């Protein structure tokens, strides 16, 4: 059974935000009005964390793309009262939008603030309604959603592989953020496969995971010389 994981090379990342835009388009993430965004009701499955170090004028800016970490022992699924969030055998953590009651306990329990909530009825700008991604269901008001590692793409990849009666090749299953990264800073693949790029990179001396001491086993590795 494969175990999907992501590696983001922060030394390569320019912080351009193309991953965020690609993610929003791919997953039909609702774009909220500026006023709503100001109130903190903005939704990003792929978020960008910006931190500043040092004092003016010697400021060092750190940009860190942050999707859901798809923990192996996710705190969010432990607390869900209705089983609306789950981890499947391939290690993907998903959300059942039709079952979620919107109590937001998973959001409170997630140490990485990875989940987002539909605070209001999604309002679409003109034109957006004509180009939804048909592979991803749209969410309704009052439910929690989050990065799925583009699980809908995996379904297609699996179908192709099944038809040709072969295993999924490394680099065949590609999430939208990785596909659109101009710096090629994002890697994705099966971490259990010793030949995969992700496996090799996760063993790199630059590799680290965020808050490893919590023991939730995130499946997202960052690569950086300076350790975020």
């Amino acid at each position, binding site marked *: 059974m494969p175990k999907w994981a992501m590696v983001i090379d922060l030394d390569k990342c320019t912080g351009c935000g193309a991953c965020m835009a690609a993610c929003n388009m791919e997953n039909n993430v609702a774009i909220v009005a500026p006023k*709503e965004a100001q*109130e*903190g*009701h*903005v*939704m990003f499955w792929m*978020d960008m*964390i910006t*931190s500043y170090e040092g004092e003016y004028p010697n400021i060092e800016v750190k940009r*860190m793309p*942050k999707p859901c970490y798809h923990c192996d022992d996710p*705190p969010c699924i*432990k*607390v*869900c*009262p*209705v*089983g*609306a969030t789950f981890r499947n055998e391939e290690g993907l953590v998903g959300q059942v939008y039709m*079952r*979620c*009651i*919107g*109590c*937001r*306990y998973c*959001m*409170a*329990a997630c*140490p*990485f*603030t990875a989940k*987002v*909530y*539909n*605070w*209001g*009825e999604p309002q679409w700008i003109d034109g957006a309604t004509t180009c939804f991604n048909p592979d991803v269901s749209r969410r*309704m*008001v*009052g*439910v*929690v959603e989050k990065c799925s590692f583009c699980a809908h793409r995996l379904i297609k990849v699996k179908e192709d592989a099944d038809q040709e009666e072969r295993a999924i090749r490394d680099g065949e299953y590609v999430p939208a953020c990785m596909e659109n990264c101009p710096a090629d800073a994002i890697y994705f693949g099966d971490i259990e496969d010793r030949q995969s790029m992700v496996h090799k990179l996760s063993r790199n001396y630059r590799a680290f995971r*965020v*808050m490893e001491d*919590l023991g*939730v086993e995130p499946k997202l590795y960052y690569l950086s010389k300076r350790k975020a």
Partner: protein
Amino acid sequence: MDRNAEHYIDQDEPLYRPLYQTGKGFYITAGILVLVIIWAAYMYFNQIRYGLAVTGMNQPVTWGFYIVNFVFFIGISHAGTLISAILRLSKAEWRRPITRMAEVITAIVLAIGGLHPIIDLGRPDRMLNLFESGRLQSPLLWDVTSITAYFTASTVYLYIPMIPDIAKVRDRGGKLQWLYAFMAWGYQGTEHQKKVLNRAINILMVMVIPIAVSVHTVISYIFSMTLQPGWHSTIFGPYFVVGAIFSGIAALLIVMIAFRKAYHLERYLREIHFQYLATLLLIMSIIWFYFTFSEYLTGAFGAEPHEMQIIMYKFTGPFAVFFWGMVLCNFVIPVILLSFKRFKTIGGILIASCAVVVGMWLERLIIVVPSLANPRMDIPFGIYIPTVTEWALFAGGIAVFILGYMVFSKFFPIISIWEIEEGRTEGLKEVEERIHSYLPAQTNP
């Protein structure tokens, strides 16, 4: 009807009076409260229509007033049943005029508090998923379970000791005969019925105590089961229970003072009752301070960075006003007012109780919000400013409580009449015998 005539010259007549006479003040107050409730209902309707965007909650402060008030109201509900059960169990004779008032608080406030998580839901229409696909591993389901158990136990515990009084009201005739006749279950006060009743009360009061303790422990588990700094604490269970009893006694004192004034119950709720309850409040205040002190000292001494960030957010950051306000309301004011005889008057007790209720609400606020506003991830601070909707629903909750209490007092005696009578006839003798049994055994000369 000789029996009825006897009742009419009952010396406890003032306790029946609110059932038959309703003044102008009652209707005016009730009218205002109904308006507040309609306002709150309208705001809630809006929230259902537009989603939780109408509240001040946001990313990352995903819980706000609703959860704060949920914890707060359920805390108040500990006044009742727990206090009355403990006092009954310990055979405190001064409990007699207090127990009913305390139990009514529990039943009403618990219903209000239990509704709050539903108000907080993004999709209340899917609430039944809790039963259809509920996960018993989730602390929220523990809550559903224990609150349901507590609500059932406390309403039964309110109702059973009320049966003799309902029978008395039934025997007096007058309005709503059928209701009282039905609710009295044919109680005539025979020896056998009395025995069964007392046994039922005894079983219930023992059962209700662990249930009540479990309720607030489990509510604290919602927070302490997560990994979030400021929440992930082993002390939370007892800390919440102590806080709940503390705020409960304060609420009980406020209600007692209000009803004493409104229904002229000075003969029944005497200075001594307030003095004793105030002493209990003082003790709880000190225990509360002990828990708070332990909780923050362990966090601050260990100084784990994330923990420290939240502690500093409360000590000196944006929540400093609320934090120090809480210490003032929950510790400084009650301890000063209740330690000195000079201040321990009804007025002083009222001020201390109001301070404690406000302080305990602040405590719930500073537990829920700062931990969410300072997530472990390096993202900007969350800011939480409640909107009109949240204030309206808060006001609505309080209005439902006051109105519910007022309406209850118009249908049932707010002070347990038969227990007062029992105190006069049996209590006196029993206490004398009890004291004799404490004294050194008499030796024959």
